């Protein structure tokens, strides 16, 4: 079992990739950053259209090792992703401010 203290001292492993082109889809992103290994959580958010011209897609990855986080940052931070019109969006790779990831539980589905 993990104590609260251990949880707090754990290294930050959840990474957010911000400022991706709004037209980018999850499949395209995964194809671009392939091969993505050593992670146990991946989540992709499509652009929020209510932000209008400022809308951007983003993705979250939780790595298992700190070295993977650094490698990923070195490789993709500032990488210019292109949208369908060829406009470039330099990605921003950061540690996510919120580090929790969904528990892999075998809880019964909600009986509703």
């Amino acid at each position: 079992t993990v104590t609260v203290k251990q949880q707090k001292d754990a290294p930050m492993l959840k990474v957010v990739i911000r400022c991706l082109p709004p037209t980018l889809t999850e499949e395209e992103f995964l194809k671009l950053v392939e091969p993505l290994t050593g992670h146990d959580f991946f989540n992709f958010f499509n652009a929020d259209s209510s932000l209008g011209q400022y809308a951007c897609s983003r993705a979250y990855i939780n790595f298992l090792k700190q070295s993977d986080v650094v490698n990923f940052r070195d490789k993709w931070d500032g990488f210019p992703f292109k949208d369908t019109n060829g406009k470039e969006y330099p990605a921003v790779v950061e540690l996510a401010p919120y580090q929790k990831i969904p528990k892999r539980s075998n809880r019964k589905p909600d009986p509703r």
Partner: protein
Amino acid sequence: QRSKKQRGRYVPRCTNTYRKLLFKDLSKNMVEKVLKQMRKLDWTDQKVKLYAMKCLSSVWNIKFGNIHCMANLVAGLVSYYDNVGIYVVDGVLEDIRAGMEINHPKFNQRRVSMVKFLGELYNYKMVESTVIFRVLYSFIRVGVSLDANNPTPFDPPDHLFRIRLVCTLLDTCGHFFDRGNSKKRLDCFLIYFQQYYFFKKSLPVFDPEARPFPLDCDNAVMDTVECLRPKLKFYADIEEANQAVADLKRDCLQKLSEKVPPEQLAAFQQQMNQSNDTTG
């Protein structure tokens, strides 16, 4: 009972129902009922799930006073679908950050709502205090230049909105930072916050005669701080506040030097100075 195929089509038609439930009907007495309805959604369908989570984080659509109901609702849903909470919190934090980068007045109400929502999520134990403090410091540090001759477009000299955001967040959940570690953290933060506040106040755009520093902003800060730390003495001016920050840093370094080997300390010191100089 609907077949699976029919249920797939069920989403767009019912969108309006859910929007009405969440954005119009949601109130203190309705949370239980809305929660029941939300649980009836087909959460296994990726599209439905994404749409529902988008709605759950669009708190600028509801009345400002009802934002705590939305936080309550999310906290209720988490006991059935725990990833909902994580997605919503991630979305809220991203929205707050994006708001700072876009800095367009049209999003001001949305930004205040989002910050309030984050505070309420803390009250419903969805995020820890670490996250709250991370956001608080980001308000007074990200894209901020404490050099009067070198302003940034993200926080122009006459722009006081960041102060408003700090006050909103502290008003919402600051009263829980009254003991233990979070109490110490808030005390530290208030020193930095005063530095930022007096820096803004000392800028030449605010001339006591032609354009005095807005009274409502002054009052908002006073009210917030007085609520949280009634005995706290405000610094007199920017010099005193700067001095307090410098003292705090020195004390911290001293405490660290007793525990950390010297080479690590040097690296830390360098980092500290850098964060002082940089604007981003």
